[in-house]
């Protein structure tokens, strides 16, 4: 039995999942009794695509040997007829490979409760970061870049095939606690990276040539608070001296025109800029990490919701950034890629005029640090459900957003500086 599972595991490791890539594929087990039957297997392999699981290739097949092989759905019937006609004993090991593969992943879901198509608790996300790194050691590693106000570790995942002199893209999710679709996207992105590395040419190229730093939840304390106390909380959970009101808006807390416009000086307000730039442990940890890796980080993506927007600098001023034309062109193309899947309309432009002027944003700060390709995503929807986006929309939202992110990453790779 366990040998059987090892075979499935081997198949998974060597042929990374693509959605429905193996739908209807059957795996047969044959024990050829003599040279004649070995010859039948040879002729089968010459007539159609046969993926040998054991032995590794057809030339190694000998009489009395256990031979396992995979064929596509539309060839399975032909194979069964041929084996029956030739009186070769066979067994169908796996009736539908796709189902078997899903079952293997589902069992993880049943035990931890983590699902890419549900909103996961912080505990589930922590366990997932450990699991995904452990299961994919050559592609994913986990580190801690700091601590939240309430003392929780800020986990960061580094994605990419190890190499020298690699440039990187930094992406974070969960700045604002109530924007649950945002951490869901970071998890989806990591899943896609590990599952399609080796089968998707763009993803393979990206992970070979670049590293991705993915911070699944920046504002962990706030995120937990939306699960336990107030689903509509936005800010961090830090105490403010001299006030009963809690929290700072992390996206008004960066040193980019800090607190000059579109932010509040009152701790009771949702856009409170904090007592000083990087007053929050979470924003300081993020900024420190980026500063330390400034020579390698070539793009910064920060994921929010809602409104269906793709924004670039500046938000702290109406003045256009130096790279306005280029950023505008990238945003135009990326939103088109996004729309191509489900016709979801995105609006793009510089923050100040497209959404509102707002100082202290991480995207403006990253840009002014020299990270030219700096974008803020505001994911689905446009107000129908708002922050309470139904779980049934997680998959389509993530799929379409992935297209835009891959486009941007690919562009960055072609335009390294």
């Amino acid at each position, binding site marked *: 039995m366990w040998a059987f599972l090892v075979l499935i595991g081997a198949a998974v490791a060597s042929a990374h999942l693509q959605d429905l890539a193996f739908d209807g594929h059957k795996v047969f087990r044959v024990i050829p009794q003599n040279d004649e039957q070995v010859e039948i297997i040879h002729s089968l392999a010459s007539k159609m695509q046969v993926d040998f699981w054991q032995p590794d290739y057809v030339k190694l097949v000998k009489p009395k040997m256990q031979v396992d092989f995979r064929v596509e759905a539309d060839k399975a019937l032909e194979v069964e007829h041929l084996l029956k006609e030739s009186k070769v004993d066979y067994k169908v090991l796996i009736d539908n490979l796709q189902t078997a593969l899903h079952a293997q992943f589902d069992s993880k879901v049943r035990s931890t409760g983590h699902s890419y198509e549900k909103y996961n608790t912080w505990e589930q996300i922590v366990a997932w970061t450990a699991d995904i790194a452990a299961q994919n050691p050559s592609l994913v590693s986990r580190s801690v870049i700091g601590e939240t106000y309430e003392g929780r570790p800020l986990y960061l995942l580094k994605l990419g095939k190890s190499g020298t002199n690699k440039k990187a893209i930094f992406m974070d999710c969960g700045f604002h606690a109530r924007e649950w679709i945002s951490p869901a996207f970071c998890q989806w992105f990591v899943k896609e990276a590990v599952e399609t590395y080796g089968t998707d040419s763009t993803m393979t190229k990206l992970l070979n040539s670049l590293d991705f730093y993915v911070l699944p939840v920046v504002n962990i304390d706030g995120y937990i608070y939306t699960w336990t106390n107030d689903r509509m909380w936005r800010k961090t959970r830090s105490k403010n001296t001299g006030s009963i009101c809690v929290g700072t808006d992390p996206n008004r807390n960066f040193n980019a025109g800090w607190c000059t416009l579109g932010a509040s000086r009152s701790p009771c307000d949702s856009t409170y800029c904090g007592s000083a730039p990087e007053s929050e442990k979470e924003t300081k940890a993020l900024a420190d990490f980026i500063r330390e890796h400034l020579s390698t980080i070539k793009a910064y993506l920060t994921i929010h919701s809602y409104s269906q927007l793709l924004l670039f600098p500046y938000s702290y001023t109406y003045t256009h950034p130096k790279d306005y034309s280029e950023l505008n062109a990238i945003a135009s193309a990326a939103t088109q890629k996004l729309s191509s899947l489900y016709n979801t309309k995105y609006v793009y432009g510089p923050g100040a005029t497209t959404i509102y002027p707002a100082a202290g944003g991480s995207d403006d700060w990253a840009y002014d640090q020299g990270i030219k390709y700096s974008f803020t995503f505001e994911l689905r929807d*446009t107000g129908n459900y708002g922050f309470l986006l*139904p779980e049934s929309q997680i998959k389509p939202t993530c799929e379409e957003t992935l297209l835009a992110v891959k486009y941007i990453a690919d562009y960055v790779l072609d335009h390294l500086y």
Partner: protein
Amino acid sequence: RAMAELPPSHSSASRAAALAAAYISHRHGSPGHGLALRDVRRARREDIDGIGHKYHLEFVLEDIFERDSTVNCTAEVLYHLGNKNSAPDVQFTIEGELKNTDEADNVFYNRIKSLKKELEAENIPDSYGNVPPEMQPIRALAWAASGYVIWQNSAEDTKYQLAQIKRVKQVKRTDEYLEFDYVILLHENVSQEIIPWQMTVLWHPQHGVAVTQNGRLPEHALD
């Protein structure tokens, strides 16, 4: 009078369109039918000396229960200069026919009328975005009623959306109307505040949605 074309991506166009959508929701919404802003096609702004700013808009609305069902609209939204107590003026046209929801409205009406105990519910949608099918009409009704509240309380630099129904309680009536007392959360997109609001809503299939009472609630009203 000065008229300027705005990029449809401009935030002021999106705010004016959201206001128009709210107003249209109130005028045309019912338990069987809700409309939300999908996107803005075209926007122009007219500055009228001594009067205010008038936005000329072309936009698309979507059915809140069926994303793929859309309708094109045009509207003029006039924000009055100075007078903060007066709601913006809205004129609109809808291209084509709106879905007829008489049957759905009547089914809901009869269902509520035949309840033995007054309807009561909380958190619609819930934290995960779920709306049980039997609560969809309650949500559509709140959507239409909140359209009125949003219209009455909007200014050129605000953008309100209905974020959630915290509580709804049916109020018994002896006449043919249905009455619901709602506590809703409004999300204001510029300040990012979540504002609790009370509204008393009257409805009858032939008489549309009326908000007879409404007011901002203090923060702790939710506890």
